């Protein structure tokens, strides 16, 4: 049986982490190929619903990354995002969703090496945790089972 290869979706901001990931490539640093990067204008644009949709569509892990505090291209987007993630993380944990599967990080445009490290550690962690079975079961619950509950 082949080794489990996790699907990781990375939501990154255009100005810092995306450029940082670019630098990882131009610096020829090798990193885990499990990650699929989605570029956003700003961390403040990343709606929490997008994370849920990523899990629903088969992601096993998620990375959310943007500019360091005080470095936001739009001055305050990442500060707003930070407050939102604090609340989101607490709510998810309260509802029993595995927060070990989501990595939040600040990666600047100069931190190509840090990006590789963030992806590699996340990928290794998700590999250890295995596929997110309980969430997938919930999403794909057959209609018969739903009706039976009523």
């Amino acid at each position, binding site marked *: 049986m082949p080794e489990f290869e996790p699907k990781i979706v990375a939501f990154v901001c255009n100005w810092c982490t995306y450029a940082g990931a670019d630098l990882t490539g131009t610096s020829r640093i090798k990193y885990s190929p499990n990650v699929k990067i989605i570029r956003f204008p700003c961390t403040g644009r990343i709606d929490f619903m997008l994370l849920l949709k990523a899990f629903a569509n088969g992601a096993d892990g998620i990375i959310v990354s943007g500019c360091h505090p005080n470095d936001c291209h739009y001055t*305050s987007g990442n500060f707003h995002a930070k*407050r939102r993630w604090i609340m989101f993380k607490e709510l998810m944990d309260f509802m029993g969703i595995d927060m070990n599967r989501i990595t939040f990080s600040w990666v600047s445009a100069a931190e190509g090496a840090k990006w590789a490290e963030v992806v590699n550690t996340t990928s290794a962690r998700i590999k250890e945790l295995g596929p997110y079975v309980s969430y997938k079961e919930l999403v794909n619950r057959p209609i018969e089972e739903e009706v039976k509950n009523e």
Partner: protein
Amino acid sequence: MNNLNVKARKLLETKVVGVVIGFETGPTGIVRPAFITDPSKADTLIYDEHCTQNLAVYLTKPEVKKLGKIGIVAPLQVMRGIMMLISEMQITADDIIVLGISSKGELLEISDISVMQGLIEKSELSNPLKDKELLDKLTSLSREERFKWWQNELSKCIKCYACRQACPLCYCTRCFVEVNQPQWIQVQSNTYGNMEWHILRAMHLAGRCISCGECGRACPVGIPCHLLTMYLADETFRYFGVRAGTSDKMKSVLSVYDPGDKENFII
């Protein structure tokens, strides 16, 4: 509650207000909200321990607003709702006369918004005791057990959105859930979609919930969905040191920021 009737009648007779929102006993003996526009009907207003609905929900409705200035019977949770609505610029202090009710059920004299603020600050603002116990019970469970517990609860949801309708702070004329391009929340009821809906609702009320528990009471299938928003209300206090609905100048926690916000999970 004689004082309440006298005051309501006076406000209506002198045409200071166009309508008084309070409670009356319905034909089957069950307490229901009342909208009194005729001074002679002011005597039907009651207030007792059965009057639990949060009446602040009606303040933003256009059909109520058009009746003129509003007098509203307001125990603590309604006062907090009013504070939030004023701070979010949905109503102004001039739109309403507050007929405050103390925790013992007595009529309070509230001449302006600062008096109300003083009263709120002196009151107990944390979550109600029985909800606190449930929250403690849930947080002591393991994560997997909590996931199962919520899945079981949320599988009952019939997507009637009563929780949204009952909430004084869910006043958007077009709710996120009705947005269908893209369709964020599935229309039909299934456990996963129900969970998405409740996460969405709780996140949109994060830092705004006034812990009145109206959403949970309104739920026809008995999902304790108020625990989600109450939990976030507690977390808001823990992280940012504020409770919603305590000031008319306050900005909700997620619409402002402080560069010094502390967290320990972002690497």
